[in-house]
């Protein structure tokens, strides 16, 4: 088969599967070439459902990494589209100054606080249908597959990306699924706490297979407070060595 035909066929399959730049209304780059290259759309796809989860710590509160990573994503969406973004959460409020330092400023962020968890999903769906938004995020504890599929369809129809900051079990219908946990700073302890450092695992991404540990890719990233952007911290391979060093240091 000629290679031109093959390429056309590949493109058609990609379009049918909903992957590739043609299948979505657009994408917003995360600003980190290593991550953007793994995502088939060259960035976070618009008009899709994305899911971010944290790493459980067993004492009731997760760390702030998943919240911060979601805020960073929403901030990038809002800055790229120059439209407001909605944050829907019915429990503890996120702290706006912290979100602002992650690029989600008050001029872009509108917070919605429903009384009940069930209203969060309703508000999320309502927000996703509104084309005047750059993105909508809802903090959820329990999402079933049907609700998630509805969200995905609504997002596809409007082109507005939906983010689930999921504190509960995986919902199953998201186009990408991220797990974000904190990672110790690498700087000299005498210099204080280094830049925010996260261990970002892409657990699921439509159009990409997973490795034997159930992940598409893993990165160790840092938040550059001056440039307000992500940067790659270190290759994932030396992660295992890190805790060793700190045990010695302490």
């Amino acid at each position, binding site marked *: 088969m000629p290679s031109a035909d093959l390429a056309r066929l590949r493109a058609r399959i990609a379009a049918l599967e909903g992957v590739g730049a043609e299948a979505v209304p657009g994408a917003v780059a995360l600003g980190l070439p290593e991550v953007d290259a793994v995502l088939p759309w060259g960035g976070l796809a618009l008009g899709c459902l994305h899911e971010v989860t944290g790493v459980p710590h067993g004492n009731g509160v997760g760390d702030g990494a998943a919240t911060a990573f979601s805020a960073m994503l929403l901030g990038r969406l809002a800055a790229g589209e120059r439209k407001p973004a909605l944050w829907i959460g019915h429990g503890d409020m996120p702290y*706006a100054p912290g979100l602002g330092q992650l690029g989600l400023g008050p001029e872009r962020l509108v917070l919605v606080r429903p009384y009940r968890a069930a209203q969060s999903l309703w508000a999320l769906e309502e927000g996703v249908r509104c084309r005047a938004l750059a993105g909508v995020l809802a903090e959820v504890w329990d999402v079933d597959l049907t609700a998630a599929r509805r969200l995905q369809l609504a997002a596809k129809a409007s082109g507005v990306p939906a983010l689930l900051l999921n504190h509960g079990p995986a919902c199953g219908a998201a186009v990408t699924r991220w797990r974000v946990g904190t990672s110790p700073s690498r700087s000299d302890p005498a210099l204080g706490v280094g830049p925010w450092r996260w261990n970002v695992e892409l657990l699921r991404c439509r159009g990409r297979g997973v490795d034997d540990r159930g992940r598409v890719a893993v990165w160790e990233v840092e938040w550059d407070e001056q440039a307000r952007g992500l940067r790659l911290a270190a290759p994932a391979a030396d992660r295992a060595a890190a805790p060793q060093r700190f045990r010695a240091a302490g």
Partner: protein
Amino acid sequence: MSVADALAVRPGLVLAPADEAADRALVDRLADWCSHYTPWAAADAWTEGFGLWLDVTGCAHLFGGEEALLAHLTRRLKRLGFSARAALADTPGAAWARARYGANHPCVPGMGQRDALAPLPVAALRLAPETAATLSGLGLRCIGDLYGIPRAGLAARFGRVVAHRLDQALGHESEPISPRRPPPSHGVHAAFAEPIARAEDVAEAVRRLLERLCRQLEAEGLGLRRLEVAAFRVDATSRSIAIGTSRPARDPRHLFRLLGEDLPALDPGFGIELLRLSALEVAPLAPEQTGLEAGDACPDEFVRLLDSLGNRLGFDRVMRLVPQQSHVPERAVTRLPPTAPVPSVSWPDRRRPVRLFSRPEPVEAMAPVPDSPPVMFRWRNRAHRVVRADSAERIADEWWRRIAPERDYYVVEDEVGRRFWLFREGLYGAEPPPRWYVHGVFA
């Protein structure tokens, strides 16, 4: 009449304790129901028996004249099981007197209250019983007897009240009726020859009324801020629902969508005979073209979303969080409605957590050196060894409200990389000893 006397007259009498609050509520409900004759309906504040005031100026022709309106009103009330007397006159006082003391001809002709009141007893002037008794004792039994008495004499003997009531009844002094609710500036209504009860009919009627109301508002360059839909049902009860908008609006489709979720609350019961839409609050809205392209991201669409969220969750649940001039973390953020302009104050430069606990959680901390971060702390039954810490940030209450001790905040990182915002309240060596708290978690 005492209970014993009453039982002597009628042995089979059913006795029930008086429930003034319930009676009052019933009269209020009837006043609401009467507001489909006129928006100026009020329960009678003067407490001899129960009464309703209706200012029907300019409304009577809708019912075929004054006589017909009164007949309509009394017939309907009778059918509902109330015994009612009604009268209509130029002044509230005259109407009150004719309704209670007039034998026939409930409609006093225009400017005819002087003649109409003359034969009525003085008690019809809404006087206290003892005042009325004194007047009768002086031989002034009818209102007509008072006409010839010099005012100065009346005032000297009884104070202002008699002359005042007389002037009110005759129309020499004005007496406004305060309606139960302020009359809306704009409103439309539809009366149904056959009461409607199906949900689809109600929705359709509301939709049409909305279109009419919006046209009315458009002609005047106004938009709705609050809208009330009231349904008057055949069983003399009324139901109402209200919606608000975050910006003046007059797009009937948008407003209908906002109402849509609440429409079932207008439970038609046995049928709705009158629907009324009132614009409770209006604001100027410049004329604009409607029907922009669907793909165009107009801010209107955002406002519509805010309306729908606000009506379902409450307008106070949708907010923008903006900086406020304060160093205290809890007060550094203030809420604004999402449509309000964002003030140009920036967030603090120092690191701030992404989650701030509404109540700082106490921790057991080990801080061997004063004025330094702890080396270890126990929070929620879990020990955290502090590996790294930023230098302290001292935050004190503003001087005009200095109640709480100063706090020294530390950004600390534990051995697995979790980052916390700890603070120490109080100083080492002082009494009481310092205490440690976790106030938030970082990225």
